[in-house]
């Protein structure tokens, strides 16, 4: 009996020990973040360092250009690229201080912002077509989807999901009408499923996956992202954490400048860029050139439609509040570009608002 009691006390003690060590690990992370952003953000030569999430796809061409042409190191900035599995992981890494900057769609950022993610928009990042493609000849519009028709898109809460919800609200009055039809698949897997005509009948995607699917006979667009949104919007935005923005103004400025240089160089030298990046994308340079010069793709850091998703997302219940003005979600360089006209809002201000 007594031995049992001792045993019980010992095991309780062990559990408490384990739990408190878990607590230490958590708080240890916090310490390391502090140390990381002060100590690690300068390399041995005293230059700034920024940790950025790297992703794949055609819209990341400017970042590859920036690396190859050394547009970041020109400003004394060393970029540490971090590869993460999904947009969800990118947001979590930012929240826990493992990342200083990332590229993300406006809706996933707004979800993070709503939940207190300490980051704001530091630049727009490309405007790109995003379209819902199908091979089923009976599906002429989004109201033709039946319960057995599965639609692939990257994840719940992604820009594709919100665009679909916006279109559904306009046409059927219910933004969640097709939520039960959704399959969360990364772009390449979605394209594979579409080309095999297996599992899914439609795929909401972006170039180059979009072009590959539309090049097949019988594959067509059911829904256009710009139409659903009612205007143009940044496919991604550059997010920088509050911590990095506040503590490393030089690194912040260098990253923005390098990005601007890369966008500009890409726009001026598309043929050269295609040659430079063809091995990276593992496609022929002619094909890449066709992709880079395709209709609707705009390599720009200008802000487009930053506030356009918020109101709809609140109404549909994806977020709980709407930013009162741009300053709640964007850093000062973006605010300065947009400006603040006395009286009626100016063109650039209107471009950020929903239509």
């Amino acid at each position, binding site marked *: 009996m007594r031995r049992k009691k001792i045993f019980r006390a010992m095991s309780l003690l062990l559990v408490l020990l384990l739990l408190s060590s878990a*607590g230490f690990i958590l708080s240890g992370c*916090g310490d390391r973040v502090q140390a990381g952003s002060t100590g690690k953000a300068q390399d041995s030569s005293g230059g700034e360092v920024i940790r950025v999430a790297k992703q794949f796809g055609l819209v990341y061409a400017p970042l590859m250009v920036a690396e190859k042409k050394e547009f970041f190191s020109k400003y004394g900035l060393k970029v540490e690229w971090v590869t993460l599995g999904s947009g*969800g992981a990118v947001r979590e890494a930012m929240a826990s201080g493992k990342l200083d900057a990332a590229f993300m769609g406006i809706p996933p950022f707004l*979800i993070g912002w709503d939940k*207190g993610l300490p980051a704001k928009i530091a630049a727009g990042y490309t405007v790109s077509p995003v379209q819902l493609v199908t091979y089923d000849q009976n599906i002429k519009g989004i109201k033709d989807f039946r319960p057995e028709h599965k639609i692939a898109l990257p994840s719940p809460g992604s820009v594709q999901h919100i665009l679909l919800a916006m279109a559904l609200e306009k046409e059927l009055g219910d933004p969640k009408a097709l939520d039960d039809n959704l399959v*969360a*698949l990364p772009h390449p897997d979605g394209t594979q499923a579409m080309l095999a005509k*297996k599992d899914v009948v439609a795929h909401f995607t972006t170039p180059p996956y979009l072009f590959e699917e539309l090049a097949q006979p019988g594959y067509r667009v059911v829904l256009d992202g710009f139409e659903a949104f009612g205007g143009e919007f940044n496919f991604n935005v550059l997010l920088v954490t509050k911590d990095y923005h506040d503590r490393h103004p030089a690194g912040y400025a260098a990253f923005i400048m390098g990005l601007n240089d890369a966008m500009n160089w890409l726009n001026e030298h598309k043929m050269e860029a295609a040659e430079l990046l063809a091995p990276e994308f593992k496609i022929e340079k002619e094909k890449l050139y066709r992709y880079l010069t395709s209709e609707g793709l705009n390599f720009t850091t200008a802000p487009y439609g930053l506030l356009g998703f918020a109101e709809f997302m609140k109404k549909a219940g994806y977020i709980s509040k709407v930013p009162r003005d741009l300053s709640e979600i964007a850093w000062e360089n973006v605010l300065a570009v947009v400006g603040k006209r006395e009286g009626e809002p100016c063109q650039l201000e209107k471009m950020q608002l929903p239509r």
Partner: protein
Amino acid sequence: MKTMLSKVAFILSLAVLWETVRIAGGYSELLLPGLLSVASSFWAERAELLKNALFSLRIIGTGLSTAVALAMLLTLLCMNGRLFPGVITDIMAIMHPLPGIAILPVAILWFGIGVKSVLFVIVFSAVWPLANHFYTGFRSIPRNQLEIGRNLGLSGLKLALSVMLPASFPHILGGLRSGWARAWQASVAAELVFGAAGGQGGLGWYLYKKRFMMETPGVFAGMLVIIAIGLVVEYLIFTTVENLTVRKWKVVAD
């Protein structure tokens, strides 16, 4: 009653520790949500949680019973034959360490995206530990017990049911326990990787959705439901079965 009380006290002290760590560490809701927000998220989402939990239980039940049948078949083949034991134990040795989730890519290729793939992963995850335990159980039946049974004139099914089954039951129960655990792991992991097809999803899909909506309290609520189901099954089902069988038969020590 006393054990009940000590369990409640233990859970309460865990809750206090959670809140202390959270408040002392000053964590944001994104990293470590408070118990209250987890509770309110649980309450607000109770209908969906129930739907997802039932779906998980249904698919795990189907997968686990298929795995049990398959494991029984494998064991019987092992027990009655000359060629089979070597081959099957080799297969078990190869397959057992392979995590079920590792075959998900293959499952998707073969069965597509959806319930069938998840089921395949569950069956695969559960069948090897089950077969392993069953086989060990049958092999470790004391020879003299079998002989006594035969001397009493038992044979075939009767011998299997009244001597072999009780003698190997502790192992069978152990196999069911680890099969159940592996089935849960497999179903949640598979749904976390590719989400779910359509509205049909279990608790893994729930966690996935909550993660993408950055609702950390919801993620914790989902995890607590998984833990609660595990506890209920352990204490209500496995322990009861154990008390009614092996403890009653005195096959294992109390």
